[in-house]
């Protein structure tokens, strides 16, 4: 498995204007005691993250922990703003040719890597070609890119084989498509000491303990107020919370979910959440009988009580959804055909001639909510006469079994997708890279192919809605919920916002006394 799908935080769609109520409604942190303006005093912010990055090469890592750090170290051509709209970053402007096949980007004047060398079109070409030629994690985002050239140091031209309405999201959705420095990559140092053009630079990496960032004075944007950020790896959420309370750390996203409700009522630490674009689901192996029968899959859809699953797995910090795309997205499709109805499920199973069904449900200890949810699912399916055998594996083994098709069903999630193409194509197209459950519906294939290159947004949205309806009706995935992004920080921290794409940005954060 070259691509850890959960780790891939996806991209934001340029034209999808997310109505992210959680992000827009009074999320800015206000330090009530007047310490806000004292932010310029600098200081080092200690942030506790739930685990250690596997490596810091943005093109090769697939761990979310890596991107928590890299978000502050690297830049992309464009980047998602708070509403996940794509805005200028390294590119200040861009034009599109009449036929939608040539995009010309103008690079920012004076952009530099943190080692002082200038960032030019050559670096952009090198970065994208590296991803494409070496088939790295995000290569699929360049599927329609025919060539990338730099006619002059300040201009990048991307030529496409087909119109790609979500190109900006592909090129700037997250730091997995960051612009890297050639010498840094070729020396191999990028793994532990990456050189980027972002607001901070890596100053030290202690394996098993922490990563130290200091302010990058060569940064093109507003100078960060903090002197630095130290990311420490704290696996246990209870410990992370203790550290936050005792002042050892000033920020964490690793809070014990069962305590979030009571924490939100207090004012120190500040705990806030935003609806995320992640979703969690159950997939049934359609290469195995009787799950090849959509009636059986639908019956399971009726047997599940999503409210109960969500409550157990996320302590209410999630929204039940029967489709993939969350309410906050412009592509949200309000469709929920499955009510919790065990009698109906039983009846459907009877009609399908299925009795004494056993489901081998694969979950992973890497994501404990799958283990928790699986136990609730097992209890619910028992009510309709299905015996669930839960198989808990470590993630490497889990991915292996998934690739081999060695499962009856599994539960997992996708993180950070924004464009509907990312939500549906790889998962539900019969030739999709992540269609491990072998779903095949020619009508869905056609709609997804067509929507991929459709430049009219209305028609595009409609195509995705038709596809989503088929996918939900066929129960290709049994969608469960969209979790919230929950983060907490000390009252001394100002200028931080929870982002629905889970990007952790400390560039405008200040630390009061």
């Amino acid at each position: 498995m070259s691509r850890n799908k959960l780790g891939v935080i996806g991209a934001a769609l340029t034209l999808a204007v997310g109505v992210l109520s959680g992000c827009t409604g009074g999320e800015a942190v206000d330090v009530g005691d007047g310490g806000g303006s004292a932010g310029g005093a600098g200081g080092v912010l200690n942030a506790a993250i739930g685990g250690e990055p596997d490596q810091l090469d943005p093109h090769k890592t697939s761990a979310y922990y890596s991107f928590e750090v890299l978000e502050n170290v690297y830049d992309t051509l464009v980047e998602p703003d708070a509403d996940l709209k794509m805005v200028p970053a390294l590119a200040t402007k861009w034009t599109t040719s009449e036929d939608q096949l040539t995009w010309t980007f103008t690079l920012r004047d004076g952009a530099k890597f943190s080692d002082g060398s200038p960032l030019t079109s050559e670096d952009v070409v090198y970065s994208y070609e590296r991803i494409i030629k070496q088939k790295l994690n995000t290569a699929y985002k360049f599927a329609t890119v025919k060539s990338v050239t730099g006619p002059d140091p300040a201009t990048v031209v991307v030529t496409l084989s087909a119109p790609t309405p979500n190109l900006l999201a592909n090129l700037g959705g997250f730091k997995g498509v960051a612009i890297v420095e050639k010498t840094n990559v070729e020396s191999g140092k990028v793994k532990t000491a990456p050189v980027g053009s972002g607001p901070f630079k890596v100053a030290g990496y202690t394996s098993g303990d922490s990563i130290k960032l200091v302010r990058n004075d060569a940064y093109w944007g507003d100078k960060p107020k903090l002197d630095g950020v130290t990311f420490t790896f704290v696996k246990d959420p209870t410990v992370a919370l203790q550290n936050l309370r005792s002042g050892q750390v000033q920020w964490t996203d690793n809070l014990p979910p069962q305590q979030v409700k009571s924490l939100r009522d207090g004012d120190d630490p500040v705990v806030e959440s935003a609806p995320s674009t992640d979703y969690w689901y159950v997939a049934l192996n359609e290469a195995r009988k009787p799950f090849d029968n959509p009636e059986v899959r639908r019956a399971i859809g009726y047997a599940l009580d999503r409210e109960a699953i969500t409550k157990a797995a996320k302590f209410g910090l999630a929204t039940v959804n029967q489709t993939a795309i969350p309410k906050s997205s412009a592509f949200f499709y309000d469709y929920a055909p499955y009510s919790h109805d065990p009698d109906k499920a039983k009846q459907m199973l009877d009609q399908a001639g299925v009795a004494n069904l056993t489901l081998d449900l694969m979950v992973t200890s890497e994501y404990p909510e799958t283990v928790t949810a699986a136990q609730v699912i097992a209890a619910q399916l028992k009510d309709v006469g299905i015996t669930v055998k839960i198989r808990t594996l470590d993630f490497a083994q889990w991915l292996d079994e998934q690739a081999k098709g060695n499962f009856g069903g599994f539960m997992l999630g996708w993180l950070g997708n924004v464009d509907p193409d990312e939500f549906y194509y790889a998962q539900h197209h019969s030739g999709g890279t992540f269609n491990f459950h072998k779903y095949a519906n020619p009508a869905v294939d056609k709609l997804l192919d067509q929507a991929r290159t459709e430049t009219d947004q209305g028609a595009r949205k409609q195509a995705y809605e038709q596809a989503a309806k088929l996918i939900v009706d066929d129960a290709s995935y049994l969608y469960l919920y969209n979790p919230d992004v929950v983060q907490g920080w000390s009252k001394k921290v100002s200028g931080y916002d929870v982002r629905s794409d889970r990007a952790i940005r400390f560039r405008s954060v200040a630390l009061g006394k």
Partner: protein
Amino acid sequence: MSGGRESTGRRVLDALRRDPLAVGGTFVLLLLIVVGVAGPWLAPAGVNDVDVDAMLRPPSGAHLFGTDELGRDVLSRVLVAARVSLEVGVVSVGIALVAGVTLGLFAGYYRGWLDSVLMRCMDVLFAFPVLLLAVAIVAVLGPGLLTAMVAIGVVYTPIFARITRAGVLSVREQVFVRAAVSIGASDLRIMRRHVLPNIAAPLIVQTSLSLAFAILSEAALSFLGLGIQPPAPAWGRMLFDGRGFVTDAWWLGVFPGAAIFLTVLAFNLVGDALRDVLDPRQLTVSEARRSTP
């Protein structure tokens, strides 16, 4: 030894009865066996009766031990998990006993290269920290109840092999063994009829002590997610799941923790008492204590 020779069984019973700690330990063990056998019937609710609306309720009349993060009755899960612990204890120590005694018997009886090879292998196994070896074995075989049993069994085999071998080495020089050889008894018969009964005492002591450690090891493996798989209840796994709730739902950890504690303590107390009676080195002490007024 004192004049009036009593049967071993009688001596054991006497000794246990005089030692209040051992009486307590025996009582707990009997209780455990009853629960282990009848757990599912004693349990007031089903172990997998999920009711998320009733999650994390503190102990009350309806749920004496409270409910867990999925609304399941903790008392029921603790009771039913007793069987798993006993099963793992008995089966894994059984494996260790059979394998260890067989290896020790052959090594001690035949000596020579067989002894060297077998006991060096045992030394290698013995050199590993107990849990590390168990984890390594589970990693190879895949997690689950059966593999946990096998892993713990393998881990405790060397102890039994060593004790057996040491006993055999002294017994095989005894006159009655030589007599048996001289009348043409087969090796297997001598081992079974003459050697084994005479080395049984330390093995019995070791068995009861190992049971305690085996149950503890199972709890540790389950805690690490390598033992019995959810949703089946196991004390170690319950501790693991409850550790995130220590501050707001103490009952998730305390009750399974107490069950592990009591069980291990009981086996240890009984094992100690048995050693007082059966271990030849301790025998003189306890005999002496007995004969003094």
